[in-house]
């Protein structure tokens, strides 16, 4: 499972999240708006998943595994985060 909801209610992204994960993530976010997303196990995010994160104004937590996600994608997601 690359997208799953943890016991604490956070949405966890791990491994290589492909295009098919976008819809799953969208469903989770719609079910629980404002959920925190834990992506420390994440190696790859498909552009479609990033698009959902940006539109959903998701709050991400942890440090992903690759430099590209950490240095380039994390700041973009942080900027898109919706003000509570």
């Amino acid at each position, binding site marked *: 499972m690359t997208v799953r909801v943890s016991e604490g209610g956070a949405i966890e992204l791990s491994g290589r999240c492909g*295009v098919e994960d*976008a*819809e799953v993530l*969208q469903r989770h*976010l*719609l079910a629980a*708006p404002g959920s925190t997303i834990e992506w420390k196990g994440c190696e*790859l*995010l*498909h*552009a*479609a998943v*990033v*698009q*959902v994160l*940006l*539109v*959903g104004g998701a709050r991400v937590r942890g440090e992903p595994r*690759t*430099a*590209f996600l*950490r*240095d*380039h*994608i994390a700041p*973009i997601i942080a900027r898109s985060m919706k003000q509570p």
Partner: protein
Amino acid sequence: MDELLAQFLIESRELVDKAVDDLLALEKTPDDRERLEDAFRAFHTLKGGAGIVEFAAMQEALHCAEDAFAAARAESRSVSALDIGNCLSCLDQVLEWLGTIEQSGAIPPDADAGDIVALFARAGAQRKASSAPRNAGDGWLAGLLAAHASAAQPAQSALRYTPDADSFFRQQDPLARIAALPGLLAVDIGPRVPWPKLDDLDPFSCNLTITALVAMSPAGVAAALGDESRRAEIEAVSDRMRPIEAESLARKAAQILEAQLRLLEPAGEPHQQGRVASAGLVAANVLRHLGRTSESEAIATAAAVSIAEGRLEPLVEAIAAAMKGPTSAAVAGVSAARRKDVGQTMRVGAEKIDALVRLTGELIVAKNSLGHSVKVAEQRGSDLAAGLKNQHAALDRLVSELQRAVVAMRVLPLRAAFQRFPRLIREISAELDKPATLVIDGEDTEADKAIVEAIVEPLVHLLRNALDHGVEDGATRAEAGKPAVATIRLSAAREGEHVVIEVTDDGAGIDVAKIRQAAKDRNLKAAEAIAAMSDEEALDLIFLPGFSTAKTVTHLSGRGVGMDVVRTGVARLGGQVELRTAAGRGTTVRATLPFSVLVTQVMTVEAGGQVFGIPLDAVVETLRVEHDRIFPVGAAHAIVLRDRTIPLLRLANVLTGRPNDHVDESGPIVIAELDGQLGAVQVDRIGGRMDIILKPLDGLLAGVPGLAGSALLGDGGVLLVLDLAEVVQ
């Protein structure tokens, strides 16, 4: 060659060096007006010189470069990277012409500036064509550069990529394509059309516009994007588009300096000393941080004067002068210093210095022979002996001083060798599409002219290797979380009688397993021998002739000549090369070279009835061992020293070609270090130490293996100096 032309050659070469320096500096700080003026002046003076010797083609070529500067000045913009590249090409052409003049003694009649003129004409046209639409764009480029000011400095291209809306359906990942760009510096993502609400979003429809800054040429970016490049706008980032970090820094510094002046304003108040000291310290620190060292020192001095004299004026004036900018006080001081330098130096031909070195060498030999005569006189109990001995001691001292003075005269800063490398790195980096900066440390370190000249070739190999093999490609660097722009460090330092030069890269390090495999594949050593080696020894295989791990033969390296050239080149200068590597963190190659090549210290030994010299550099120790500690190993012998087994050779046998089956049970043994390995050589007798002028062998003896050279002895005899590494082999 007539004298005018000879002078023209010398001066032109100096000016070309100066201009290259200025151009490379301008490339880094395109808005440095002073550098621009310096470069302009160098080109102008070069052109003037060409006019005096009536070299029309050179005048024409330089005129084009001058025009490019003039245009940049008139439009008060910075010189573009393209212009700098063209100016460098122009200087290359000039150097080629100068080389022809040197060989033929006359100005080449067929010299033609057509290529250079065309080069600048193209650049001019391109500038006109590109300036209009760029300003009319929707500003994404300016926004991107402003949002990523520091990434914009090394950026060569900017792109805006709008993937097709159904690209997700077609199993494409536009972001992965961007992530894979070599030299990726910054990324931004925005919506193509405004974002819908989350529940209205079609997760399978791509609504992204991705913008990015890349340290790679637009052509390279287009190639890396492949088919998708038609969905991307790719723009070259030129120097004048980059946000200027230095300027805002200077503004902040000015504000701080102003604050210090305000702090000093109410004169005559108590605690004045404390305020002066703190204002002086802050102002000096700010200027030092900006690299304006001389002004920083001036302020520190002024603060001390203010405190000592109890008045504020000196410090206030110094800060106010510094606020007028780096062009005023400090520059005046520097140019005064420059003028002083010019007055105190004399231009002397290198051949005259070399003649002086030769004569000093002869004088040392003559002094040594006088020493021999003194000994003979003493042995015969002559009453002249005491007087002669004193004279010899005085002569010895004077000759040593002369030798030091001559050595100092031949000394050059390593800058003379290093100054061409920033350009080399620039070219290799462009060729390999691996963005890199060269950091040079200790270029003021001095070394003998022969060393400075001969070290260039090994260093070229090392720098190429560092960039070609050491530095990873862009994707691998990104994966490892390393900055896209690699750093290659070239440093030099004096350590006692040696000069140490290091080349360090921040690349992947050397994979010892690969080295072993490559050595096996190329049959450089037996497979068992390779397997038995420690990692350190295996790493040393890299220095064997014919070694190369490059899979493809590139223009730069991969032909199996490389590190062995480095080691032999450095060894020829009497130096050693070592290599250190850390997986994932990079590789350092360290060359230790003698400071001077004039005098070699040798130890004399006797073998087979003849006296030989052994360079003292190689000798670790001398000892006698009991015969029960010498034992046979096959047909050869070995000794055990501090738990290490060291192969033992009897020098007399080696030199006469006799089998090495007999060793003297009590003869003295010289332990020598050869390429990191210890070897033991048994001799008949050990003599003394002596300073000699080592001469390479010529005539009949040239090429005799095992001999490093010869030297003339005090008694008129000739001392053959052994190359122990070859002897042992």
